[in-house]
């Protein structure tokens, strides 16, 4: 559990368009790393390369290495399905399966690949995962109701429960709070703080206060202009990025003086 990620000189393409260029970054296990930067700078695109979700988009491909505890995700013979079951992902908009009950949503990933699970194990796992996502008390009486009947914040925590139910090594979060109200956001942020005890967490956020609140390290991405590739500008401890950045661009962005 909780593996480290090392990225070596990664280029990310949409067909021929170079979207992100030359990113090298080392992400520690059991830590929270935040990616910040302006819209279109490639931080979400880069995040999706960390569990091979980028290539789901037609034309999406990468050059370079992403190592999970030393094993290259893009190595020959590596099945993206295996990668994704070890590196989970939470999306910008809550996306529980609308045709499944709350319980089935939590178990959706566990039942994949033909795995069987006994009823008592399933019940225990559902409770453990929902507790892990701070959702158990709110839904324990309606586990058989559809997941789409929950509030946005609850749905997002259901998605987190679904992700941790498959016991991944890493959890990627792509702006998980951008569709949520402040109270739900706070609930998710508290949850992220707890998740880092067991998992490596990487989060993309537009909200700099959020990055400052939840992350141990922060990476700032930027683009020189439209049509140019996004680049990793600065990567450091969160406190350093926000109080004493090395790069002028980082300082301009975090202080709100960004063009």
């Amino acid at each position, binding site marked *: 559990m909780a593996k480290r990620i090392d990225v070596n000189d990664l280029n990310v393409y949409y067909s021929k368009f170079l979207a992100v260029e030359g990113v090298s970054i080392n992400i520690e296990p059991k830590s929270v790393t935040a990616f910040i930067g302006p819209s279109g700078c490639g931080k979400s695109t880069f995040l999706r390369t960390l569990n091979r979700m980028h290539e789901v988009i037609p034309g999406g491909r990468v050059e370079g290495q992403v190592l999970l505890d030393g094993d290259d995700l893009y190595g020959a013979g590596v099945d993206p399905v295996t990668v994704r*079951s070890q590196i989970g992902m939470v999306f910008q908009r809550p*996306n529980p*399966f609308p045709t499944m009950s709350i319980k089935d949503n939590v178990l959706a990933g566990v039942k994949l690949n033909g795995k069987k699970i006994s009823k008592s194990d399933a019940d225990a796992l559902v409770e453990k995962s929902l507790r892990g996502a701070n959702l158990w008390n709110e839904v324990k009486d309606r586990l058989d109701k559809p997941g789409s009947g929950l509030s946005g914040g609850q749905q997002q925590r259901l998605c987190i429960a679904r992700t941790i139910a498959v016991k991944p090594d890493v959890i990627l979060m792509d702006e998980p709070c951008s569709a949520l109200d402040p109270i739900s956001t706070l609930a998710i942020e508290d949850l992220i703080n707890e998740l880092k005890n067991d998992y490596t967490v990487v989060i993309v956020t537009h909200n700099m206060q959020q990055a400052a609140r939840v992350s141990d390290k922060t990476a700032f991405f930027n683009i020189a202009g439209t049509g140019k590739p996004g680049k990793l500008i600065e990567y450091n401890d969160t406190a350093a990025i926000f109080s004493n950045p090395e790069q002028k661009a980082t300082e301009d962005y975090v202080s709100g003086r960004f063009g």
Partner: protein
Amino acid sequence: MTTNALTSKSSTSGRAGDKVFSGAALAAGVLILITLFAVAVFLLIQALPTFLADPAEISGGEGFFAYIWPIVIGTVIAAAIALLIATPIGIGVALFISHFAPRKVAGPLGYLIDLLAAIPSVIYGAWGYMVLAPALVPGYEWLAKNLGFIPLFEGPASQTGKTMLTAGIVLAVMVLPIITSLSREIFLQTPKLHEEAALALGATRWEMITTAVIPFARPGIISAVMLGLGRALGETMAVALVLSTGNLIPSLIKTGNQTIAAEIALNFPEAFGLRLAELIAAGLVLFLITLVVNMIARGIIARHKEFSGAN
């Protein structure tokens, strides 16, 4: 005198548009109900003599029920064969077009399937009569020889191939484009969000389809199958050409059986008086079958409403 600033005077033109549109929508809705009602009334009135007549005067001499039930069963069997063949193939082709085929292949293939739906049924009938039926004869003989102990395949097999099974297969070909193109539209509407959710959990492509695409598309698939069923139940020309009719028999590979639509089409030109009323009564029964089947389908869709994703 106080005036309310929110009461506007200049917006009547916009309101007029609203009124015209809601009026037009209402008229269209009412028109459909009137048409349906008029059809039902016409069938009832014209069929009435059949129900009042002396049972001995009805074709077959044993009353309307004895006359109608064999062809009701025949109709249902033909439609069932068609759906059993066309539904899995149609869903499979639709999935291939929407989720597996490269985009360059998917587009033209989709158009091609839509074109199949535009072929007149008499052409399908002629093809079934001249090409398919003779081609199936060896297959039927094999079935009669090896699976003849099952009543469905009891021999001796028809030497022309003009049997219930042939009719069902021709109907399946006709129904296939309807099921395929409707299912494909629904599959394409599956939210990317749900597909990615499944993939991000470590689903293979097939698992993504079973966890995200098929459940989302379920009501749509049922509707598509129902529309296909409508065509299979009501199809006249193809069945009239392909099936050499006879009494109701269990075997699908012998000459025999009849469907309502073909019975009406074959006998209508020479029918008058009570015989005409009989055929119209048969039409009424077909109308009722379609109605009941559609209501059952609606019921199935409604029962899963809570989990449909519409909320």
